[in-house]
C-alpha cells in the first residue's frame, strides 16, 4: 500500500519528464538518465560480467532510448520499455561477440554438461546468506546462456514466458537453463569462495534443521 503511494507521484513525475524530453529539454533527459542509470547499468554489468562493456552498453541503451523517445506513447511503463531495450542491446552485443546467446534451444552442448553433485562425503549448505561480492563473481563465471537466464529471472525478476520471448526459446528450456545455472552457481560458490570445506563431513549438529 505504501508502495502505491510512493509509486504514483514517481510515475507522474516520470510521465512529465518523458513529455519534456520529447520536447528536447536537456534537463529532462538528464533526470531520466539519473532515474534509471543504476538499474540499466547493473543489468548490463551482470549480463556481461565486465565493467567496461557494461558502461558501453548502458551508454548505447540510453542513446537508443533517447533517439526513440519521441515515439514513446505510454502504452507500457517507460521503465519496462527502457529495460527491455537494454536487454536487447546486451543480447545483440553478445550475439555479435559470437557467444551462444541466439537461442537457448541452440545452446552450446558444453553448457549442458551435468552439474557435478557430490553426495555423501561433504555436502553442506552454503554458509548463511550468500554475500554480494561472491555471488557477483559467481554470476560472472557462468556460461553466457546460463548467466542471461539467471540474471533475467532471479536478479531482474522477469517471468519465464518473458524470457522465452526475449531469448526465442521455450518456457521449459528457460526453466531448465535456470535450474542448471543455479546448480552451477552453487557448485562454484562451494568450490571457489570457501563457502564449503570439501573435506569436512557434515556432522549431525551441522545438519540442516527441519523447516
Amino acid at each position, binding site marked *: 500500500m505504501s508502495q502505491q503511494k510512493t509509486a504514483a507521484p514517481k510515475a507522474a513525475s516520470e510521465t512529465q519528464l518523458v513529455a519534456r524530453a520529447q520536447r528536447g529539454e536537456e534537463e529532462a533527459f538528464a533526470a531520466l538518465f539519473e532515474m534509471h542509470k543504476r538499474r540499466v547499468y547493473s543489468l548490463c554489468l551482470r549480463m556481461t560480467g565486465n565493467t567496461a562493456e557494461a558502461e558501453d552498453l548502458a551508454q548505447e541503451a540510453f542513446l537508443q532510448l533517447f533517439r526513440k523517445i519521441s515515439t514513446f506513447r505510454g502504452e507500457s511503463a517507460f521503465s519496462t520499455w527502457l529495460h527491455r531495450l537494454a536487454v536487447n542491446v546486451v543480447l545483440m552485443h553478445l550475439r555479435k561477440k559470437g557467444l551462444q546467446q541466439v537461442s537457448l534451444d541452440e545452446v552450446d552442448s558444453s553448457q549442458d554438461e551435468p552439474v557435478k553433485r557430490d*553426495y*555423501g562425503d561433504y555436502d553442506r549448505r552454503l554458509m548463511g*546468506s550468500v554475500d554480494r561480492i561472491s555471488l557477483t563473481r559467481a554470476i560472472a563465471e557462468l556460461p553466457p546462456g546460463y548467466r542471461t537466464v539467471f540474471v533475467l529471472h*532471479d536478479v531482474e525478476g522477469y517471468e519465464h514466458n518473458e524470457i522465452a520471448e526475449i531469448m526465442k526459446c521455450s518456457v521449459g528450456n528457460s526453466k531448465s537453463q535456470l535450474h542448471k545455472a543455479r546448480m552451477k552457481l552453487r557448485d562454484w560458490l562451494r568450490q571457489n569462495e570457501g563457502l564449503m570445506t570439501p573435506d569436512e563431513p557434515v556432522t549431525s549438529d551441522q545438519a540442516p534443521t527441519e523447516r
Partner: protein
Amino acid sequence: MDDTRRHRTAECDRCELELEAYMEGEARPFVLAHVRECVFCKVVSEDLQALRTAAGELPLEEPSPAVWANVRAQLSAEGTFAEKEGVWSWIWQLDLLRRPVPVAAFACMLVLGCWMTAPRNYPQSEASASLAASGGQPVAVRSMAFVSGGTSLEQVVRELEEAFKAREGSLAPDVKATYENSLSSLDVSIRECNDSLQREPGNSLAHEYLFAAYSQKAEVLSSALDIDEGR
C-alpha cells in the same frame, strides 16, 4: 560413526529431476517427502532457495560519470537537445532573420561600435602569446580564444555546424536559405580574418574580428537548431 555420511540413492536422482519444477513453485510431494528424509537433498534445495533470494537482493551498481557525459555529448552533437530560449530565438520571433541585410548592417555597426569604444591595450590571449613565442607561424583559427573547459570556440562552432547539417533538411526552404546566407557571410568574414592573420599573426584586431565572427556564427547556428521543422 557419522550417520550423515551416505551415498546418493535412486530417490535422490528422482528428487533432483523434480527439484527444478519444485523450485518453480510446482507441487511436488515427492520432493517434500524426500527432503524430510535426506539431509543432502534438503541442503541442495535450501541452497538454491538462498541463491534465489540473494540474487533478488543484489544492490544496484553505479555507472561512472563518463556514461552520462558520453550520452550527453552524443545527443548534443546529433542536435537532440532543444536550445534554450535566448536572444536569438527572441530575435527570430521578431522575424529579423528574414531581413538579413538590415540585421547584418546592425550587427556590423554593433561590432564597430564595440571596437571603437573598447580600450586598445587588450591583453594578449594565451593563443596569441604562444603564437608569438613560436615565431609567428600562421595558425589562424587555432588561435581562437578558449572558452570554459578548454574547448575552443572553433570546436563549438564545428559541432554546431555538424548538428545543423544533420537537421537542416527539416527546415523550411526559405528559413534554410536565410540561415545559409547569414552563415555564408560570416564564413567570408572568418576567411578574411584568417588571411589577415596568416599575413600578420600579431594583428590583434584580426583576432578580435575572428572571435566576433565565430561568436556570431555560434549564435546563428544555435538559433537555427532551435527552430522546429516547418516553423
